[in-house]
């Protein structure tokens, strides 16, 4: 019995080996080595020394990183919005209506649109003389153009909106797959028992979607904390650091200005936040045992 178990385990590990080697080389090693470098003065051109928490002290003393961390946490506001929006869309496009596939594809287009195109397009839309302000002015909803990306009190929300817009289609597809896995018999049985549409949604659909909700929530929490692409193409952290996110700061320092230890220290902090929030998600939205 022991021998069979060992043999089975060995076989399993051998099958896993190629993927594990790839993970080790391209994920575990960079993460481990990068984390180590966050505690050094690594500079590519000079000998590396251990500097303890110096890089962390530097970034926490820096207004841009502090603003970035606060904004990254604020970005978490998009998680419930994106999840509720995606579930709603998934329920809507789950109906068998003529042309519904067109809608499914349309909602998915932002997911496959490259970030540079997103930047140009939303740059035009959010421009002071752009489409959005034109429409609002024509409808007389505002008296003067809104500085969507130039007013520091609203720029972050404009960037967050683009993140929601980009992510909605992806989560919609995930929920659609979850919805289609809900057994039709359960719905039929509930109908026979006299349950209305609302009751069926809350008593059958939502509980059955719970594993999908957990996965999607974790993914969107991580995506929110790691948001930087939209910042890069729309605002580069401005106005007045209002749209700096922690990861954009890491990119800015590590890759743009080649201050790698600072960038890595910022990434390390973001990683800690990601793990902590992921553990919270796992604790509170774990699927119930059936």
């Amino acid at each position, binding site marked *: 019995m022991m021998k069979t178990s060992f043999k089975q385990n060995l076989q399993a590990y051998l099958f896993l080996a190629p993927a594990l080697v790839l993970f080790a080389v391209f994920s575990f090693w960079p993460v481990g080595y990068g984390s180590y470098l966050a505690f050094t003065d690594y500079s*590519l*051109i000079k000998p590396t020394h251990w500097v303890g928490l110096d890089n962390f002290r530097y970034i926490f003393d820096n207004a841009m990183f502090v603003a970035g961390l606060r904004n990254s946490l604020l970005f978490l506001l998009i998680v419930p919005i994106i999840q509720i929006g995606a579930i709603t869309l998934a329920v809507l496009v789950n109906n068998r209506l003529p042309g519904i596939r067109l809608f499914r594809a349309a909602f998915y287009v932002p997911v496959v649109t490259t970030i540079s195109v997103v930047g140009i397009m939303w740059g035009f839309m959010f421009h*002071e*003389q752009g489409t959005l302000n034109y429409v609002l002015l024509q409808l007389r909803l505002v008296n003067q153009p809104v500085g969507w990306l*130039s007013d520091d009190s609203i720029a972050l929300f404009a960037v967050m909106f683009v993140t929601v817009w980009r992510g909605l289609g992806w989560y919609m597809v995930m929920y659609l797959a979850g919805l289609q896995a809900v057994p039709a018999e359960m719905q039929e049985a509930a109908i026979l028992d006299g349950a209305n549409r609302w009751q069926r949604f809350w008593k059958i659909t939502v509980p059955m979607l719970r594993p999908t909700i957990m996965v999607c929530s974790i993914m969107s929490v991580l995506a929110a904390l790691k948001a930087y692409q939209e910042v890069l193409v729309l*605002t580069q952290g*401005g106005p007045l650091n209002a749209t700096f996110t922690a990861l954009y700061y890491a990119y800015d320092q590590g890759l743009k200005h080649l201050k790698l230890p600072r960038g890595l220290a910022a990434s390390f902090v973001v990683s800690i936040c990601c793990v902590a929030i992921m553990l919270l998600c796992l604790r509170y939205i774990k699927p119930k045992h059936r």
Partner: protein
Amino acid sequence: MVSKRLLAAGLVALSMVASQAAQATQAMQNIEFWTMSLKPKFVPYFETLVKRYEAQNPGVTIEWIDFPGDLIQTKLVTRIVAGTPPALVNLNVPWADEYARDGLIVPVDQLMGAAKSTYAKAAIDDLTFSGKTYGFPLYSNVTVIAYNTSLFKEAGLTLPPQSLDEQLAFSMKIYAKTGEAGFSPSLAKADGFMLQQGLPIVKDGKAVFNSPQHVALVEKLAVAYKAGGILKDNLFSEDNFPAAIAAYNGGRLAMLSAPPTAVKRIETDAKDIYAITDVAPAPLGPTGIVDGGWLIHFAVPTGVDAKLMPAIAKFARYLTNDENQLAFDKLANVFPTTIAAANDPYFQRLPVNAGASEKAVAIGAESMKRSRTLYVAGIDDYDELRRSLVNAIEAGVTGKQDPKAALDAAVAIWNKKLATQAH
């Protein structure tokens, strides 16, 4: 016996051929040079240049690689660390200053030799740090003002501005009369902006940009901003040029402060606006320096094979000589850094029926004599410090904070950093 002799003779012949081949291989010198964001437009230019040089210099092979501006630094540092740097690399002046301090590029005074006197003094001065020259100047640029004569006329203006004060006053008047913004200063380069106005950033190792004169400058900008004279689109982003030229091409901006290349772009992208565009020199600051100088040069990285140096020096001089600079400048609408090329009739004579584009080149060539790359040399983390200055100006100009308080806060950040560098 005969066959043994034949065999021996064959071996000797073979070894001689092999030895000659080896010598030929050893004699072949490969020079790799990097440019910044010049593909695809300049592929024919550089390919012709390389072929001609290889034909004139047997035994030398040239390899040209072009990198986008945002990648070239990472690639360069990586290759220097790996011990395989390119022979020559395109850099701008602030990068060269930082690399020279870090020992990543080498002085080229000896490599330049007598050719040094062929380059414009301002270009050599830009590239001289601690008494040593760190690059072969390639080209530079300068700002001119392209202005919309129709908006000027509507605002009752007939002449272009002669000073920053006038430019701000004109901008407010234009907005009041036409509803369109007057101009879009490059406030992300606030350091250069202040230096051009004769206002120092650092003095005796301390930041001094919170003086009453500095505050007054920010207040002037704030007044124009509030009055609608300044274009708000991407005003404080690292590069506000795309937003500014888009606004100018759309008839939403009266004055575009930009290099002559921009006027060429207006001609291509917005023919109706180009038809009503005239060009004037950018106002000189009290320093007599014109805005927009941005010298690009070829630097020699650390770690290049010493035996290659004479060949590198010869090729660098070839790349940046009068003839080749002139050919490149005509293609790119930029300005030469050699004295002879700058005096070429192309830059001196305005053709009959010259359009705004040709006029921009002639005006730019005249302004080049007063062009310098304006920034503060010798400071670590300069970009980050500059960002705090830009943030302060943004806060002051947009009215988010009192200009004096905003500049005081930025000065404190600078001085904290400068104090650590002093130790």
